């Protein structure tokens, strides 16, 4: 039998003015199990807390009810006071007689009557409370960053800086990501490679960082603090430890007709290649789809020219298991495919390019060596039309591949492109067709205004309706909504600001991580305002554009934020778990697995266990078990379970039913 103490707070006049606190304390005395009941001026005061501590000792209380303000205010205070008095902190219940009683009811008899019901309900609940102890689980002090773009690199560097080991898994042969393909960055116009490559080198040289390039995550097990990740190291056919990155093989390889993905197919590379000069790791990779040796067994040139003997045609995919305490998703973005927009003639004319392709055409390391030339005839374009919002901001039921969201970065990089074009080639006419120009960022609007005012870029409010390749030109038909005219421009090039979307690998990765995604395949954050870099799945963090469209400064900021969250986690030796978690009664569980399906955290697993039957035989049965370190205590499983095998500590079926009974009495 519990020995319950009830403490009724006056809260000055906040409660006492409308609730007869003495009557409430007196009524509580008559409830079964109550051995002490009193009212007090301010329960949250030092002396109020002392009263709790003293009465626990004096009356050997096993549970207490504090009738006061909302538990959201002072539950913690009273739990701590109870703990100081030698009581388990989970043996405390709060009856909210201020926010949910005295403050909303004007008339004393009815407010007092309600307060008594609320107290009864709390007494009924605390009678069924059980002491709970928060469990702990150890933390593996190593983090995994999935994706080696600027987001992943920055996160890894920051984590490593704090002294923790961190691995980067990158699916491409080199880290660097999208930023490596970009020429200049807005709004400062510094060279992307100049600021990115030092970071890549830093990551490569940091002894806390391991880079698994040309690798993918193929399985994730475990939970926060204790993940086991299987990394698939794709066969590179080049021994990483032997290759010196001299690049001789990439020059001698006879297979020259491989579209170069780094330059978005604007030129070709060999079947054995190093993506770009500053690649990290600088190791050659054989493309098995094109290598004649791998396909037909005839060639072997690279092997012959390699003095280091690094070529290994027999290589196989390798799988390694590594333990991590935290995982950061930094899978980034890609521009959408724009082939479906027939009106822009992207598929019809090579001179219609996406912005990222334009970026490569402007880049000194790009296919044209930095000279802006039309892809079709390698001549200098004189009229360039930029089209904004291609595939962004489309209605949800759009039949094309458009996105309903604003891609955020296009306004700025288009301004950058227009500006750089005008700067390098003042003889070109540059038109930008926009719906809205969105420049909320530090020095962003000034940058856009510079493009218009200083560089004379023609910004036209309106959309391009049609692009027709005709006689070596691109006939652009567009509307100028402000002039109320339809424009016809003979352009040499058209640049489409294609919407961006999450990388295709993000969705399967989210499934592996049991992290949730929105309908656009962006990772969902744990809270859109207050926990923007955490996924709802404990131990999984988000960095960069995989969470939503972002520019570089934002990505770097978020990468640092994610890193700090990871550091905060890894700095702990043990994680203290919320003890109010679900637990499965194995005697009742019938293994139907319904609960597993509703758990948003993947906290429920199934295993066969041996049970002794009443007739003394044994039986193997499938039963659920809850990982207390992962469970967040929502209770979805408890209702899904038809046999009541699943219950929630602190909010058990019996406790809630006792509250219902007390209220309806």
């Amino acid at each position, binding site marked *: 039998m519990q020995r319950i103490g009830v403490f009724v707070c006056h809260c000055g006049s906040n409660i006492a003015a409308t609730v007869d606190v003495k009557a409430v304390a007196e009524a509580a005395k008559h409830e079964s199990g109550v051995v002490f009941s009193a009212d007090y001026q301010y329960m949250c005061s030092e002396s109020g807390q002392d009263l709790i501590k003293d009465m626990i000792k004096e009356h050997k209380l096993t549970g207490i009810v504090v009738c006061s303000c*909302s*538990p*959201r205010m002072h539950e913690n205070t009273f739990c701590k006071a109870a703990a100081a008095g030698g009581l388990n902190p989970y043996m405390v219940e709060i009856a*909210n007689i*201020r*926010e*949910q*009683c005295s*403050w*909303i*009811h*004007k008339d004393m*008899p*009815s*407010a*007092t*009557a*309600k307060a*008594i*019901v*609320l107290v009864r*309900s709390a007494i009924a609940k605390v009678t069924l409370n059980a002491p709970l102890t928060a469990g702990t689980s150890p933390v593996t002090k190593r983090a995994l960053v999935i994706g080696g773009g600027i987001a992943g690199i920055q996160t890894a560097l920051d984590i490593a800086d704090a002294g923790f080991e961190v691995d980067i898994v990158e699916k491409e042969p080199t880290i660097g990501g999208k930023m490596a393909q970009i020429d200049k960055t807005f709004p400062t116009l510094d060279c992307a490679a100049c600021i990115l490559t030092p970071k890549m080198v830093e990551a490569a040289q940091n002894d806390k960082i391991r880079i698994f390039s040309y690798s993918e995550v193929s399985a994730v097990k475990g939970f926060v603090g204790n993940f086991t990740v299987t990394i698939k190291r794709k066969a590179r056919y080049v021994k990483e430890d032997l290759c010196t990155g001299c690049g001789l093989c990439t020059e001698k390889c006879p297979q020259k007709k491989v579209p170069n993905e780094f330059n978005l197919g604007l030129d070709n590379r060999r079947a054995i290649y190093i993506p770009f000069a500053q690649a990290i790791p600088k190791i050659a990779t054989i493309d098995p789809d094109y290598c004649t040796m791998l396909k037909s067994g005839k060639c072997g040139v690279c092997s012959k020219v390699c003095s280091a003997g690094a070529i290994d045609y027999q290589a196989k995919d390798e799988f390694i298991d590594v333990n991590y305490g935290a995982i950061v998703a930094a899978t980034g973005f890609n521009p959408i495919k724009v082939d479906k927009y027939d009106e822009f003639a992207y598929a019809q004319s090579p001179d219609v390019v996406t912005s990222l392709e334009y970026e490569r055409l402007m880049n000194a390391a790009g296919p044209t060596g930095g000279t802006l030339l039309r892809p079709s005839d390698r001549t200098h374009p004189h009229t360039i039309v930029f089209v904004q919002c291609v595939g962004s901001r489309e209605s949800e039921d759009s039949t094309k591949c458009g996105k309903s969201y604003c891609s955020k970065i296009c306004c700025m990089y288009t301004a950058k492109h227009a500006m750089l074009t005008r700067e390098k080639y003042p003889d070109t006419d540059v038109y930008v067709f926009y719906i809205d120009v969105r420049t909320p960022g530090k020095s962003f609007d000034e940058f856009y205004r510079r493009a218009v005012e200083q560089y004379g870029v023609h910004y036209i409010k309106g959309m391009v309706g049609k692009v027709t390749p005709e006689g070596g030109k691109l006939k652009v038909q567009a509307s100028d909504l402000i002039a109320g005219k339809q424009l016809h421009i003979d352009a040499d090039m058209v640049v489409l600001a294609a919407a961006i979307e999450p990388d295709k690998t993000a969705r399967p990765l989210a499934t592996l991580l049991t992290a*949730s995604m929105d309908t656009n395949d962006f990772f*969902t954050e744990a*809270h859109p305002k207050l926990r923007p870099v955490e996924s*709802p799945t404990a131990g999984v963090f988000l960095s960069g554009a995989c969470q939503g469209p972002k520019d570089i400064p934002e990505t770097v900021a978020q990468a640092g934020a994610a890193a700090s969250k990871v550091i905060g986690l890894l700095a702990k030796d043990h994680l203290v778990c919320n003890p*109010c978690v679900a637990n499965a009664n194995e005697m009742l569980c019938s293994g139907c697995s319904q609960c597993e399906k*509703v758990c*948003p955290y993947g906290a429920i697993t199934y295993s066969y266990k041996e049970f002794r039957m009443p007739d003394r035989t044994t039986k193997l049965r499938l039963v659920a078990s809850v990982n207390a370190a992962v469970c*967040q*205590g*929502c*209770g*979805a499983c*408890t*209702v*899904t379970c038809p046999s009541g095998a699943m219950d*929630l500590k602190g*909010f058990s*079926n019996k406790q*809630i*039913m006792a*509250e*219902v*009974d007390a*209220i*309806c*009495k």
Partner: protein
Amino acid sequence: MQMNDNTFRPKIVAFCCNWCSYAGADLAGTNRLNYPADVKIIRVPCSCRVNPTFVLRAFGRGADGVIICGCHPGDCHYTSGNYYARRRMTLLFSMLDYLGIERERTRVEWVSAAEGAKFAQTMNSFVETVTKLGKNKRLEDLRCKK
């Protein structure tokens, strides 16, 4: 302590999720927004913690109305709890209606932590509706009558 006059006062049980609706109810209090004392709130971690048996239990024990409040769809603290609650309660309430229990006695409302006014207004309108219906006679357990 019943009211002295004989006018019928309903018993209302409100299940409120800890993160949104319970906070919304607190805000209603902080803003001194009135609603009838007939409403008694039970705090649950999430609307998905509300088992249909709790709802039936409340009616059996003499409640005249049961309302479940949770975070707005999409805002669940646990990401998906209220979506499950929404399906469960829709089906349960539809079943109660099918069995001839007055459908106005049950309700689900999404109340955020910022919606103190909505909470008070919801409770006012629910109490009014249930008061009009009168005592729950179709789903009460006569054994529990005093």
